[in-house]
C-alpha cells in the first residue's frame, strides 16, 4: 500500500467515523432548537434504536424494512412518553431542571435496556451486503454509504421542516422565547412534545444504521453521546449542516491522527481541534452568534 492509497483509506475511515458522530449530533440539535436544553439521554435513544432493531430482526424475525420503521416508531413513542411523563408535568421548568431530568432518563433507559436485552454486544447484518467497495486501493463498506445517504436525507428534511413549515417555525420560536411564543398563540408544550418525539426518532435512526459497523450494547449510547455532543457543539448547537460538517472534521482528524501521528493521540488531536475552534468561535462553526446570546445554555 503506497502513501496515496493509505491517505484515501484514512479519509474513508474518517468519513465513516464522522458520519456516525454527525448522525448522533443531529438528535441533540432538534431538542436544542425547540427547547434550548441539551438532552443528555440522546445517546440512549440511539442505543434503543439499535437494540430494538436487533430485537425485531434477530429475535422476532421481522423483515429488515418492517423492523426499521417499527423500531423508529417505537423509540419515537418512548421519546414522547418520556416527555409526557417527566417533562410535561413540570409547572415552570428551568433549563437546569430539564437537563437533570434527562440525565435521570438516560440512566433509566440504560437500566431498562440492560434488563430487557442483557449485557452482550450485538451486531446487525448490513443493509446491502458485507462486501467492501474498493476505490483506488482503499475500501469502504456499503453500510457507510447508507449512513451518508440517510444522514443527507435527514438533514434535508430537517432544514425543510424548521425553515419552511409552520410547525417547524413555531418550534424555533419556542426556543427563542417561550413567553413570546405562547403569547402569539403557539402551544409551547405541544412543541416540546414534538421535539422529543422527533429527536428520539432521529436518534433511533442513527442507532439502527450504525449498529452494523459500530456494534451495539446497552451501554454504548453514553459514549456515542459524548462524541455526538462534542460534534454538535463544534458545528454550532442548533445547526444541522454544522453537525454534519463538524462530524466529518472530527472523524477525519481522528483517522489522520491515528494514521500519520500516533493512534494513541488521535482523541487528543480531535479534542485540540474542538478547543481551538471554540476559542475562536464560541458559537461553533456554523452556529449563529446572535442566536447563541439568546440562549440560556
Amino acid at each position, binding site marked *: *500500500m503506497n502513501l496515496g492509497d*493509505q491517505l484515501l*483509506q*484514512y479519509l*474513508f*475511515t*474518517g468519513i*465513516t*467515523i464522522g458520519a*456516525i458522530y454527525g448522525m448522533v449530533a443531529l438528535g441533540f440539535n432538534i431538542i436544542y432548537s425547540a427547547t434550548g436544553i441539551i438532552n443528555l439521554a440522546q445517546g440512549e435513544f440511539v442505543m434503543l434504536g439499535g437494540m430494538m432493531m436487533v430485537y425485531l430482526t434477530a429475535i422476532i424475525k421481522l423483515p429488515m424494512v418492517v423492523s426499521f420503521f417499527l423500531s423508529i416508531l417505537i423509540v419515537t413513542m418512548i421519546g414522547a412518553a418520556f416527555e409526557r411523563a417527566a417533562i410535561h408535568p413540570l409547572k415552570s421548568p428551568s433549563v437546569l431542571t430539564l437537563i437533570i431530568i434527562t440525565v435521570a432518563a438516560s440512566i433509566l433507559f440504560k*437500566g431498562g435496556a*440492560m434488563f430487557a436485552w442483557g*449485557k*452482550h*454486544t*450485538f*451486531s446487525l447484518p448490513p443493509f446491502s451486503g*458485507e462486501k*467492501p467497495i*474498493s476505490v483506488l486501493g*482503499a*475500501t469502504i*463498506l456499503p453500510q457507510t454509504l447508507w449512513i451518508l445517504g440517510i444522514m443527507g436525507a435527514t438533514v434535508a428534511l430537517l432544514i425543510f421542516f424548521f425553515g419552511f413549515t409552520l410547525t417547524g417555525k413555531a418550534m424555533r420560536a419556542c426556543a427563542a422565547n417561550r413567553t413570546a411564543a405562547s403569547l402569539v398563540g403557539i402551544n409551547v408544550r405541544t412543541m416540546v412534545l414534538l421535539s422529543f418525539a422527533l429527536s428520539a426518532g432521529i436518534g433511533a435512526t442513527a442507532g439502527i444504521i*450504525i449498529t452494523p*459497523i*459500530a*456494534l451495539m*450494547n*446497552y*451501554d*454504548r449510547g453514553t*459514549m*456515542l453521546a459524548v462524541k455526538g455532543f462534542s460534534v454538535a457543539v463544534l458545528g454550532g448547537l442548533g445547526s444541522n449542516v454544522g453537525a454534519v460538517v463538524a462530524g466529518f472534521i472530527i472523524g477525519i482528524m*481522528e*483517522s*489522520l491522527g*491515528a*494514521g500519520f501521528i500516533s*493512534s*494513541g493521540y*488521535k*482523541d487528543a488531536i480531535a479534542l485540540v481541534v474542538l478547543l481551538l475552534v471554540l476559542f475562536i468561535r464560541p458559537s461553533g462553526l456554523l452556529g449563529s452568534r446572535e442566536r447563541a446570546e439568546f440562549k440560556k445554555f
Partner: protein
Amino acid sequence: MRKKGKIVVGVVVAIVIVLLLVGPLSIWRWVPMLRKPAVAYKVGAIFAVTGPAAWLGTPERNTAKMIEQEVNKAGGINGHPLEIIIEDTVGDATRTVTAAKKLITKDEVLAIVGPSRSGTTMAVIPIVEEAKVPLVSCAAAESIVVPVKPWVFKTPQKDSDAAVKIYETMRERGISKTAIITATSGFGDQGRKQLKKLAPELEIEIVADETYGPDDTDMTAQLTKIKASEAQAVVNWSIVPGQVIVAKNMRQLGMKIPLFQSHGFGNIKYAQTAGEAGEGIIFPCGRLLAVDTLSDDHPQKEVLAKYKKEYEAKYEEDVSTFGGHAWDGLQLVIAALREVGPDREKIRDYLENTKNFVGTGGIFNFSPEDHSGLTKDAFEMLTVKNGKFVVLE
C-alpha cells in the same frame, strides 16, 4: 461455714466451666449444636455486574451466587453458613474503591474475591494491603501480582503466558514479524507491555504498534497502517466491542494475515457477533470452553465439566471463562476457611501455600514468590471454526 461452702461451690463451678470450655471434654466439641446459630463466614465479592465490563461481572456474580447456595445447602463451612456479599463496581475505579472500603470496614469480610478488571484491581490493592485483607482478583493483568504484594492473589492465567503462547504459535507457523493493536484500557495496556517485552525473547519482531480507545467505532485507520507494514500477523489485545470491530475491519480491508486475540476473547458470543469475520481467529484460552474435546483423564476434566453443567443448567446461558475465574477465587477462599477458620492472616498464609489446587483456569501452585499460581500450560490455543471454538491443530 457458709463462706467456705460458697468458695467450694465456686471452685467446682469454675472447674466445670473451664472443663466445658477447653480440653477434650469441652462443649464446643461435644455439642456443636450449642454454637448455633453459627456466625456466618462473610466473604466479599466485587464484580463489574453492570457497566462496560458487565459481560465479565455477570457470569462472576452468577457463579458466586451458585457457589453460595451450593455450600450452604451442603451445611456450610464446618457448620458456618457462607455469606457472599456482592458489590457492583460498574467497572469504575472510584466505585470499586468505595465498595472495597465498605466490605472491609462495615461488613468486616474475611477475604475479597474480585474485582473483575485489571484497572479496578490496581485501584484497590493499596486498600487491601493497608487493611490486611486477602484479595483474590479475577483480572488478568500481570502487574497485579508482579511484584508480589503480600495480600493480593489472582486466578486468571497471566497475560505474559498468553503472550508467550501466542508467540510460540507464531513461531510454529513460521511467522516472525507481527503487528500489535491494543485498546487503551487497563487490560489492553498491560497486554501491550507484555507483548513488547516478550517479543525479543521469542524472536518475534513487532513491526507496527497501534492502539485505540476502548469505545471506538472503527479501527480501519490503524489497520491500514498495519496493512502497509510487513506484518505477517496481527495480535489484538482488548475486550468487546473492540475485539469484534478489529476482526470486521480487517475483513473490510481485505487483510488475509492471521488475527490472534488475547484470552479476553473467551466467550462464544464474541465469535458469533463477529460472524464470518470471526472465522479463523486464534487465541489462548483456559480449557473450560473446550471441555468437550478434553480427554477424560485430564486432571481438570471433572471440575470443568461439573461447573459447566451446573452453570448452564442454572442460568440457561453459555459458560464463560470469566465466571470460572470467580469460581477459582471463591473455592480457594472456601478451602482456606475450611482449613484455618475466620482469620484473615491465616487465610492469606493458606492461600500462599496452596499446591495442586484443581480449578477451572488450571492447576494452581502458589508460593511466596508467585501469587498467580498458574503456568503457561494452563492455556490451550483455540480457534474459531464454523462459529464454534475448537482446539487449534
